[in-house]
Structure formats: structure tokens, C-alpha cells
């Protein structure tokens, strides 16, 4: 049977949204989607997969590579080998995928962000998206991949009926690596990755005293404030607001970058935004190579005028 085995990422009772990219990948590849998930009540639309395989174990044990590998061996024992095993491209997904590939000597491609269904070619980026590679698996064996968040969720389709459910027993105790606890990130209520409209600030705004004025503008526009690395390093904005390779990857509808020159580490974190508007006084700033719209002007002057217009 030609199926894709999807390893879901679940934490504290939450079925992570990036799992939809794994499911979308299976749909795009034209494979039956079999979802492996621990027992429990997860907020999951069960008509988007063909089969749900419930593992009888606690969620905290599920993302342990030793256990996942055993669970997958069991599944292969009963259902046959999948054509493809799909993980999310997250810290835990990469860890599990590599471990599985090592254990079973399977080919692996991580951070897959595109797929050509006719040619069965996978795409992944190199050097922070400076170059893209096209890959094909060369041998007849299951392929292990991790998929980039946001890449495939649009390919998820409803199957019109609910998935069949089966269960698989969890393996007995694993002693070499035991989970102690999970510590939540400090929550302050702001998740810039969920914002539709980001007003993003860079070093070009001058100094910390300008921040409140941008906050006023953000309120007027109902935008969320984010920033580039220099702004975070100087502590003008908290770390959770940082966009870029050492911060967060965002894809809002509108990314309004003010005073951001556009170092590639920053670009990597925002280039897939639907509409990028850059305001910078330097017409040579790299950000203009990525922006859809550009304004060559002092960011603070544009801010003041915008405020006047929106208030008036």
C-alpha cells in the first residue's frame, strides 16, 4: 500500500498547526495520509487524513526518538513500509527524523519547502535561501523528510469521510533518556507569527525614545510591532518581537519595515510575507530588493505624517 506516515507534533494537549504542512505534503504527493498521534483528545479535523494511528502512551513520551522509532517499526510490521515518513521541520521533528533515518538507514531530506508531483522531486534551500536544491530519492526505500512550516498547508483537502482509527501499543520503558519536565516560554500575550499586519522597526529609527511614537502608530493601524536584531540587542524591544534567523519567521499579510536595512538574516525571517513595504532613507538598502513597495524617506518623518493622516 502506498501511504505516507505522518508523525504529528503534539505538546501539552495541542495539535500543532504546523502538522497541517505534513498532511498537505502527503496530499500533494498523492499518498494516503496515515497520522500517528498519542492517545488523547486533540483538536484535529479527522476527515483530512485516511487513517489515525493512536499510540497507547503518554504524550510526554511520544516525542522521544527511541520510542518513536519503535512505534514506527511496529507500524511497518503491521501495515507495511510507508512510501514516505513526514515530520515537521521543528527542533523535535528534525531530531526524530534523523534518528529514524539513522536507525533504519533510510534516505532523509530535511527542511523540504517544495515538491514537484509529476517528477517526484523535492526542493530544499541552502545557505539561508540563497540557493535551492532539487532532490530525488535514488533508491527504492521509504524516504524520511521534514517539511518547512507554511509550505504545504494549502494542499490539505477534506476526504469527505472520517478517518479509520487503529491503535498501536507503546513500547515498554526506555531508561537511557527520561523526560523530566516541560518549561513554557514566558508568555506575554504577543505572538508576532500570528499577526496579520506587522509594523517592524530597525536601527534606522534612531533611538529608544522613538518607540512609543511607533506604538501609537501601530495602535492607529491595528498593527503589531516587531523589530530587527539591532533593535532587540539594544533592548528597545523585547526578544519575543524579533524577526529573523535568530528570532522568528513571520508571514503576515503586510510587513511594513521602517528603518530596516535588510541584512539577509532578517530577510530570511520575513521574505515570504504577502506584501512587504519598506521605508528607508538609503535607496541602496538591501531591503528594497525584497520589498514589493518602497518609500525612500526618513522612517520617523513618514511615521509622523501617517499618524497625522490616520488621526485626522
Amino acid at each position, binding site marked *: 500500500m502506498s501511504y505516507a506516515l505522518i508523525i504529528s507534533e503534539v505538546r501539552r494537549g495541542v495539535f500543532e498547526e504546523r502538522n497541517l504542512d505534513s498532511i498537505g505534503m502527503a496530499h500533494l504527493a498523492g499518498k494516503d495520509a496515515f497520522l500517528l498521534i498519542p492517545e488523547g483528545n486533540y483538536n484535529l479535523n479527522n476527515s483530512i487524513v485516511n487513517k489515525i494511528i493512536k499510540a497507547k502512551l503518554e504524550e510526554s513520551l511520544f516525542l522521544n526518538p527511541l520510542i518513536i522509532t519503535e512505534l514506527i517499526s511496529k507500524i511497518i510490521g503491521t501495515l507495511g513500509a510507508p512510501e514516505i515518513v513526514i515530520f515537521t521541520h521543528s527542533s*523535535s521533528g528534525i531530531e526524530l527524523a534523523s534518528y529514524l533515518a539513522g536507525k533504519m538507514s533510510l534516505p532523509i531530506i530535511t527542511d523540504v519547502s517544495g515538491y514537484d508531483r509529476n517528477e517526484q522531486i523535492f526542493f530544499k534551500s541552502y545557505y539561508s535561501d540563497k540557493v535551492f536544491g532539487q532532490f*530525488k*530519492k535514488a533508491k527504492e526505500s521509504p524516504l524520511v523528510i521534514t517539511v518547512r512550516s507554511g509550505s504545504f498547508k494549502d494542499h490539505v483537502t477534506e476526504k469527505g469521510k472520517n478517518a479509520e482509527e487503529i491503535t498501536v501499543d507503546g513500547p515498554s520503558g526506555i531508561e537511557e*533518556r527520561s523526560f523530566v519536565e516541560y518549561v513554557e*516560554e514566558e508568555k506575554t500575550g504577543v505572538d508576532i507569527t500570528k499577526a496579520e499586519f506587522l509594523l517592524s522597526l530597525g536601527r534606522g529609527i534612531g533611538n529608544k525614545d522613538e518607540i512609543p511614537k511607533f506604538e501609537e502608530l501601530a495602535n492607529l493601524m491595528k498593527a503589531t510591532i516587531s523589530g530587527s536584531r539591532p533593535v532587540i540587542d539594544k533592548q528597545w524591544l523585547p526578544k519575543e518581537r524579533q524577526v529573523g534567523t535568530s528570532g522568528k519567521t513571520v508571514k503576515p499579510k*503586510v510587513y511594513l519595515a521602517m528603518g530596516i536595512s535588510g541584512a539577509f538574516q532578517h530577510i530570511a525571517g520575513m521574505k515570504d510575507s504577502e506584501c512587504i513595504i519598506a521605508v528607508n532613507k538609503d535607496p541602496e538598502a538591501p531591503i528594497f530588493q525584497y520589498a514589493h513597495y518602497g518609500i525612500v524617506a526618513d522612517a520617523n518623518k513618514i511615521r509622523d505624517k501617517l499618524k497625522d493622516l490616520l488621526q485626522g
Partner: protein
Amino acid sequence: MKILVFIKQVADTEARILIKGDNKSLEIENKYNLNFFDEFAVEEAIRLKTKLKDSKITVCTYGGKKAIEALRTAIAMGADQAFLIDNTDLDTEDPLITARILSEFAKKEGFDIILCGRQAIDDENGAIGAMVAEFLNIPHVSAILKLDVKDDKHMIVESDAEGGKGTIEVELPALFTTQKGINEPRVPLITGVMKAMKANIPVIDPTTLGLKKEELIKDTSKIEVLFYETPKARPPVKIIDGETPQEKAKKLVKLLKEEAKVL
């Protein structure tokens, strides 16, 4: 305690990268560094050595002759010895092959703890650490942010998980991959640099590690690279003109209202 650190030499983030005429290989400007995430591994090894008696840090890479520079950087920081497993003519994109070679080296050299960066910044695979651990049949934790010694057989680590951290107790021998934030890698002192320049770095032929040459070459790779391509060219930016900031701001408001529809 034997601490083993696997590193990789990678192109600098600012290096120019061109796709060669055959579309199957890359030409990289001659600017190379010790991989960003591996610097944390070397630093953590050095810190661990100060906590554990009679420890020795061995650094190893599977790479071209040039990679000896990255090994010297690790010695300059404070590693005790280094080995280069020479991949000349054996270069492959398959992490399975690299992981097998490194694990064979680890078996020969012996180890209590293995550290390496969570991923290389060039191919961004992030696969080697976990695979080596699997080949060695030892536990591992990826992307650690803290490494504490519990006793001489157990470590307590904090690992990066989406939206939080996990705390995990691990029995040695084990492998850990390091994440940004675990430490601040030191800048080598001049005495370290002098030591590194003089250090004798043995070069190992990978076929002497007990693997057959057929197992190491591209043909056995389970992944085939078809082409490299540059990202799709983006449409040129549309500059919003105006005589004054006022005019530009007006046009921007219009754009946000009518095209982007966020106002």
C-alpha cells in the same frame, strides 16, 4: 572523561555562492568559518572539561584538506587534539554516509560524551548528530540550551522545544547537539592561536575506519541531487514617489487601505 566534538567548516554567511554551469555543484567564495552552531559545542566541551576531572577534548571533522583551519580554530579555543577525516574525492550530500564515518571514528577513538552543533548553516540538514547517536546506539538530545553534570554517569540537559524547553536526564555515554544560547563561545587567546598553529593534526583516510570505499561514494547515496537553482527573481520594488514625506505617507495610506486592505 573523553569528550568528542564533531565540527564542520562552512562557507561564511557573507560568502558569495554561485551555481556552476552543470547546475549540480556550487562555487563558493573562499571565505570559510567554523560552523556557527559548532562553536557552541566546542565552548561547551571546554566548560565541561573544567567541571570534570581528567578530561580530554578531541575535535574531528569529515571534510576537505581546507577544513584543517576550522580544527585549528577549535584547538585555539581550547580543544586538546584534532583529527581530519579527509573526504577528498568522496564528497557527498548524503548525511547517512557522513554520519557513518563519524560514528566509526568515535568507536575507534572512544568517548563518554559527544557534542556537535544542532545543524550546519550551509546545508541546514541538522541530521548528523541524531544519526551518529543511532549508529553508536547511544541516547541523544538535540538543540540543548543547558548541560549540567548530575554525577559521573548522568547529565541533566535542557533542550529547545517549540514554545518552551524540555528538561531531560540522560545516561552517559550520550550525544548532545548544541543550540544558540547555551553559552557565549570564547574568542581564542593569542597563546591558543600559537598552540593551534603548531598543533599536529593527523589526517585520516576514511577507508581505514572499517568501511568499504563502495559505501562511501556518491553512487551509494540514497539521495540524488538533481539541480541547484537560484531563488526565483522577485519583481522589482515599486517605489512610492512624492515631493514631501506628507505626499508619500498619503500614498502609503491609500496602498494600505486599497491594495493591502489592512486599514
